[in-house]
Structure formats: structure tokens, C-alpha cells
């Protein structure tokens, strides 16, 4: 449990980084409700983070940073998902495919032979 301002400021940093456990977030929220100094410090930290994100070209930046996905990785996963869907669809079509599937059309047609 934090007792000093320095400790509360460290807790605020951790909270904004998304690394604070729920119980400690609750304690921090309770402290912020009674400590105007810490509440102001938190608002100041938020403003700094937003300013930094905007300067980095992200006008809708989230305060809590999210893990970034690289373009190549994303493309790979999309390609894998598409390929999986295609293979699954082809297999399902072969196995259960629409009505009338199964044998070739010519096999279902009548024939006339001479005995």
C-alpha cells in the first residue's frame, strides 16, 4: 500500500501503463478522491501522454498503450485465415456439398444398350 506522494505517483504511472492490479487501482481511485495533489498530478500525466501521442501522429491515441501488430504479421495471419477458410469450405462442399452432389451427372443418366 502506498503512503507517500512519490509512491502514489508511481502507482499513477503504473495505472496509466495498464499494469496496476484491480485492488491497487481501487485503492488509488479512493486516494485520488481525497487528494487533490495526486488527482492534479494524474491529470498532468495524462496530458503529457496525450501530447506525446499526438506528436507521434496519432490524434486518437489511447492513454494506455496497446501492443502494436506489425503489418507483415497481420498480413500473414489474414492469409492463414483465408487459406484455412478456403480449405474448410472445399472440404465441406466435397463432403456435404449442395443437393445432388456426389456422382457425375452422366452416371445419373439413363442408357440404352443392345443385348
Amino acid at each position, binding site marked *: 500500500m502506498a503512503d507517500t506522494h512519490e509512491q502514489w505517483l508511481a502507482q499513477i504511472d503504473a495505472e496509466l501503463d495498464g499494469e496496476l492490479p484491480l485492488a491497487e487501482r481501487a485503492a488509488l481511485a479512493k486516494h485520488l478522491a481525497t487528494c487533490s495533489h495526486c488527482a492534479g498530478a494524474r491529470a498532468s500525466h495524462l496530458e503529457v501522454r496525450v501530447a506525446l501521442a499526438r506528436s507521434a501522429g496519432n490524434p486518437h491515441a489511447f492513454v494506455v498503450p496497446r501492443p502494436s501488430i506489425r503489418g507483415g504479421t497481420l498480413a500473414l495471419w489474414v492469409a492463414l485465415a483465408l487459406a484455412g477458410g478456403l480449405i474448410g469450405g472445399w472440404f465441406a462442399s466435397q463432403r456435404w456439398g449442395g*443437393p*445432388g452432389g456426389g456422382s457425375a451427372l452422366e452416371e445419373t443418366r439413363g*442408357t*440404352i444398350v443392345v443385348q
Partner: protein
Amino acid sequence: MGLSSFSSVLLVLAALQGPGTRLTYRVRVIQPVAGAQRILASGAVSGPIDSDMRLTLRTDTAEVEALFQVTAVGDTVSLGGEFFTRRRVGQSRRGLPIWEEDNYRRLIQVTWSDTARAYPFGSATKPGALWVELVLEREFAGGEARPGESFDLADSTLDFRLEAVVRPRRARVILNLVRGDTVSAPRPIDLVPEQPPRVVQLVLRGRATTLFVGLTRPEPARSPRDRGLGREADIVCLRVAAAAALPGQTLGTICGRLNNIARQLPLPTGDTLTATFSWPGPR
């Protein structure tokens, strides 16, 4: 032209006219059961040499309608079949049956003594697949143009039908004039389709009505299925015109099959003309 050449020409003409030779399709529907052959149905259809045969087979999961046609060239016969099939292939999401429709043609060459075997539901190699055994016969007969049909059904679960499809070269038309509850004497007349109209006089209560009547073929059926199966083959149309009418002016047209059912045409005089179409007698 010598006498023998003249006789040959007459013989060829007589052969081309057809009714001298009668064609019979003998049919058996057979299902193999444990190595034996079970006859589900049998029958025969006969008629003039250009007669076709319409065969219908229905089971719970498949329907086949086929029109068999024969073209004889000497001792060889071309046997053609126009098949219209429906197969039940499953159910829709709402539980309704889904049918697959197909249409195809088959043609083989046989001789008169051959037995042809048709597998209407396909898969000649599939065990248990039923087949239709078809034997063609010809015999010399008089001028009998009326088709004959007979069949015997051994298995009542099978819907089986055989019909002769014959385009009549001539038709017997019986005309009556009706006024109120009075009917004129029947006036039978043999007519040939697409020939010039003939004059008919019908007398009712002492008043004579003179009409021009001519026989025509109906318009081809709109549906390709009906056309392919020759459903309109035995339908003829009687064009009726007044005696003083200009060419092309008619009082009306009566169409019907050659099935002895009277059909009516109201006339401007207030009378009703009834026409009954039937197959002509042999000659």
C-alpha cells in the same frame, strides 16, 4: 416406264405411306433380385410404323418420362429416346423436397430381332438397378391407324404407364347441330389435316346450315417438355367457316384429342355445332 418399274414405284409408295406396316413396342420392366429377374410390369404399344411410345416410370425418389422413336432403314432400326427425368436429391432447410430435372437424348442402332435394354435411372453397373427391356416388332397389317396400348402391372408400388404417340394422318369427325333440345342427325366425315376445307350441310328442323370445315394441326406446345414428349400429337383442330365467308374468315376453331368427346362451338345463328373427334376405322 415398264410394268415392273411401275409396280416397284407403287410398292415403294405403299411402304412410305406406312399404315400397311404396324409397329409394336413390347416392354418389360425388370428388377434383378438375388440373381433372379423380377418382372415389375409389362406391356405393349402398337400403331402405324411411325408411332412413338411414351413411357412413364415413377418411384418415390425418381421420375422418368421418355419418348421412344423408331426410324427403320431396311433391317436396321434407329431407336431414339428423349428422356425427361426428375430425381429427388434432398430436402430444403424448410423440409421440402428438392428435385433435380434433367433432359437428354439417347440413340442406338438395333435390328428387328434385337432386344434393347434401357436403364432409365442410370447406372447400368449399379446392383439392383431396374431396366426396361424393349423389343421392336413389325407386321404387315391393313390400313389400321388406331394405336393400341396394353400393360400389366405386377408391382403396385411402381407407377408405370405406356402410351402410344401417333400423329393421325386422318381423323373421323362427327358433326351435330344443336338447338335447344333438338339435335340434328350426326354427320360423320373423314378429314385429313391441312387439306382444303370441305362443305358440310347439316339439317335441323328443316333448316339447312352449310359450313366449310377443315382440319389443321394445333400450334406446337409451348413447353419444351410437352413438345419433346409429343403430348399434342393426337390433337387436331377443326376450323369452321360459314359458306359465304371470305377466305381467312372463320366462325371458330374446335381443338381436341381423338378421344370421342364432343366439343362445342356456338354459331352466330344461335345454334351450337358439336364436333367429336375419333380415330378413323381401317380401310
